[in-house]
């Protein structure tokens, strides 16, 4: 019986390892490729390990810019600025709204909550063009405002996720606090938020990830060279005359670094957070 189990486990591990190798392939190819010369990435004979290595791809990529003499440094600052404000805005607004849905009994709450769930099915691409027209009318194009300001009004996904988490916090805690004379905002600030750190981390990490990688928004709204984000800058590296993929892979690796680091910092909470929201959809 035990032997059967061992055999089965071996098979399971083997399949899982193959799956891991498959999903990691582009990522591994990118990182190893970033140390390669062009012929090692595509050609008659390619090699998996960079031999000989071309570490100069990294400094070249950091400085490289087909025409602008503006390095990736500026792009990083721009992306960071947008992503950080987005995280702040989402955390502040979504947690407030989620608290309202989770704890305050007001008339029409269930109906509004249904509306919230329905808007999760409305992708932003539907409103992209009219929103552009709108932001153009008020003169916000070519600034970070169209990318940041909407984040201060919550997103359905984040509100939903936080609300599900808030619901797991025993009501007795806020009732006790309110008996002690704590206001509603006080309960939100002193009880709910501190107890929800994992959920806030998940929300924050996801918001950061989305905004860091977003291409369409910056593509539409950011005109000037100095305001480019990392994703936009990367896409501009692809020119017909740029024929060193190693350099581009190095730039891509650098661009993904913050995302991956953040993911590993938050990963303990991420799966928990997803589990929580996933299991309450039905």
């Amino acid at each position: 019986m035990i032997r059967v189990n061992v055999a089965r486990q071996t098979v399971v591990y083997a399949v899982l390892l193959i799956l891991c190798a498959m999903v990691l392939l582009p990522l591994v190819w990118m990182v190893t490729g970033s140390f390669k010369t062009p012929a090692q990435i595509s050609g008659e004979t390619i090699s998996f390990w960079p031999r000989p290595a071309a570490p100069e791809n990294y400094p070249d990529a950091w400085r490289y810019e087909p025409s602008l003499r503006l390095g990736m440094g500026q792009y990083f600052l721009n992306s960071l600025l947008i992503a950080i404000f987005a995280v702040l805005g989402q955390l502040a607004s979504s947690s407030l709204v989620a608290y309202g849905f989770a704890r305050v009994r007001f008339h029409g709450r269930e109906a509004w909550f249904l509306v919230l769930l329905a808007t999760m099915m409305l992708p932003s691409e539907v409103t992209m063009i009219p929103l552009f027209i709108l932001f153009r009318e008020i003169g916000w194009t070519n600034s970070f405002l169209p990318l940041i300001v909407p984040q201060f009004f919550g997103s359905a996904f984040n509100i939903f996720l936080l609300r599900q988490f808030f619901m797991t916090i025993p009501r007795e805690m806020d009732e006790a606090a309110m008996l002690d004379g704590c206001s509603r905002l006080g309960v939100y600030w002193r009880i709910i938020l501190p107890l929800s750190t994992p959920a806030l981390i998940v929300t924050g990490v996801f918001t950061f990830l989305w905004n860091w990688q977003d291409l369409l928004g910056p593509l539409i709204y950011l005109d000037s060279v100095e305001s480019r984000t990392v994703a936009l800058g990367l896409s501009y590296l692809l020119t017909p005359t740029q024929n060193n993929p190693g350099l581009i892979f190095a730039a891509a690796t650098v661009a993904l670094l913050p995302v991956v680091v953040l993911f590993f910092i938050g990963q303990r909470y991420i799966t928990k957070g997803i589990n929580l929201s996933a299991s309450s959809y039905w």
Partner: protein
Amino acid sequence: MKRVAFIALLVASLPAVLLLRQRETGEEFAGVTLRFSFWGSDTEIAAIETVCRRFESLHPDVRIRIEPLPWTQYWLKMKTQAAGSGEPPDVIRMTSIHGAEWYSRGLLADLSPFVERDKVDFSGYFPATVDAVTWEGKPRSMPTDVAVRVYMFNKDLFDRAGVPYLDPKKPMDWEQLREVARKLTITKNGQTVQYGLSLGYMEFDAFVYQAGGLAVDRLVDPTRMLVNSPEGIRALRFYSDLIVRDRVSPAVMQQENLGFGAPDFALESGKVAIQHGGTWSIPGLAKEKGLRFGLAPIAMDKDRAQVAFTNSCGISARSRHVAESWEFVKFFASPEAQRLVASRGIGIPVLREVARSDAFLKSPYGVDPMEVFLDEMECARTNVSARTEEFENQMQKIVSEQLCLGSIPPEEAARRMEKDGSRLLSPEPMKPTMVTGVIMPAGFLALAGFLVLRLVFRAGRKARGQTMRPSRGENRAGYLFILPWLVGLTVFALGPVLLALGAGFTEWSVLQEPHYVGVGNYVRILAQDHDFRQSLRVTLLYASGSIPIQLVGGLLCALLLNVRSLRFTGVLRTVLYLPYLLTGVAISIVWRWMYASNGLVNHLLGWAGISGPDWLMSETWALPGIVLMNFTWLGGNMIIFLAALQGVPSSLYDAAHVDGAGLFRRFWHVTLPMISPAVLFNLIMGTIGSFQVFAVPWIVTGGGPNDATLFYVLNLYRRAFQYNDMGYACALAVILFVVIFAVSVLELRGSRRWVHYEGAR
């Protein structure tokens, strides 16, 4: 409480801080700073910069801030800027390809007052360049340099084949060209290892003129396409035969992937004997060690003919420094500046006097004889300049992606070009009638209103079922808490949807006033828009390929991770999940090279004994290639399935085990029904996700080849920002909304048959 107030203040002050930040970027320079946008390679940028610096030394009170972009992004960015609310650059580098589009929309200032005041004499310029910058009899930009493509040939390959060099004075005729190219083409084991010719981006219109035909009724702002003539068909046949039948030239779409160099730089590969190239090709070719090359005029048929592309500098109609900009533009077109850049590889000087001087003829790269360019200029006419970029793109698509890949014969290509071209050049005006202008929009809105009211009514009925009796204070507090979201919902969701509904009834470029056209856009989309149909088809095909991969793959991962007493599940889960979050530009870039004809994917296939296709250049394989990328994005579905699996009570498995059910039966009769709500969730989210795909095709294929990967949002973006058809794009957005809504409802309805809700009955 203080902390709350502090946070609130911080939040409120953000927009102000951001506004300030952008103001601060201005410099302390007291004079005028002009922004100058242009495209170019590094050598071209350097050349243009010398002009700017020279101008600054002559005008110390003016500074030029250069904003160069790569050609591939330049026009899109310029148009977005012109359509946006920010300030466009003061001086904009123009090409005659887009001349009519920019002039007709009034995006560039009329230069005739300055030209008259400063008595600029246009007689010294090549006539084709003057034609290119004139709109309704008035100059709209100043020509700075002009481009024609000539033959550049590798002398060593000619020597090796024993073929005499091309004559720099006398052009070959078509048959001679075909013969020479055939002699210089080498095949080994059925594979071409050396091409005699690389047609590159040679314009089909030049061939039509050589055959004695006409491409359009007039060159600037044409109204009709005329290639469906004996001469036109003859030209298209000769052009495509070189590629498809004689196989003496690679198709432009494939040549780089097959290792025959980039178009305009094909000689660098050492495997091409003759290429088309312009002055901008010379610095690159000259840098290539051991490459000896010569120049020759392009072949002729009945006539000698060439197409010239004029580059010029225009002044934005919204510039606040028109006078200073004029000084700069005038300087760029002057003999002094022309001499400065004459030999720097940007183009041929537009002034005959400079072009014929040593400044141009004595090439610093030792290329001789540069006179070839001048002879060609004398028989050149300016290129076709249409009011819409879509014309140029559609013609390119038919020629490069259909005719030259052998999928249609020349007669069909000529027919399609004339039909599509004429439709794009003189679009039928959309005049709303009683039916299309009043009755149908009203019916449309009434239907939408009815559906919304029904939803509201239903939600209200559900809400009434609640037994809550909130107090007044409670009520107010609740709405205060959800206020941010309510405001956001109104401003960023409801408002835009209503705006899209309204604007969808107009023809509107945002640059001009909107016209009411009733349901005209919808009629056009549903009845005749090929791109719309194609994009819907691509998106649905993608959905039907990617969703099963994600569902089955995600479920497999989840089931394996859920095996009892498995260790390292935490690490494995993380590893499997991470790639799902990385679907942006960076990873797409990697895929572009993985799918190259001799990239990683084909090497892996090669080890398995399969010879892989040229994925991204093949109409058949490009979309499957993008679908296959989903094998790395199993993590999203996996994690949802994991959560669902953990919710299945083990007592159910035990009972099934006792009943003697095997592994598969337990999965089929216990696991699958129990997790069916998760399947439904992943299905719906996957469908919506398919309608959001943008970055991947944008980076990996750009929507091609021949629209094989034109996803819905890509088409939407193109319509809105490349063709500035905002009203039309709004109608497309409304249709997107309706399609997503309908598909989701269908999936939900259908799910009642197979989704099992525990405790529901």
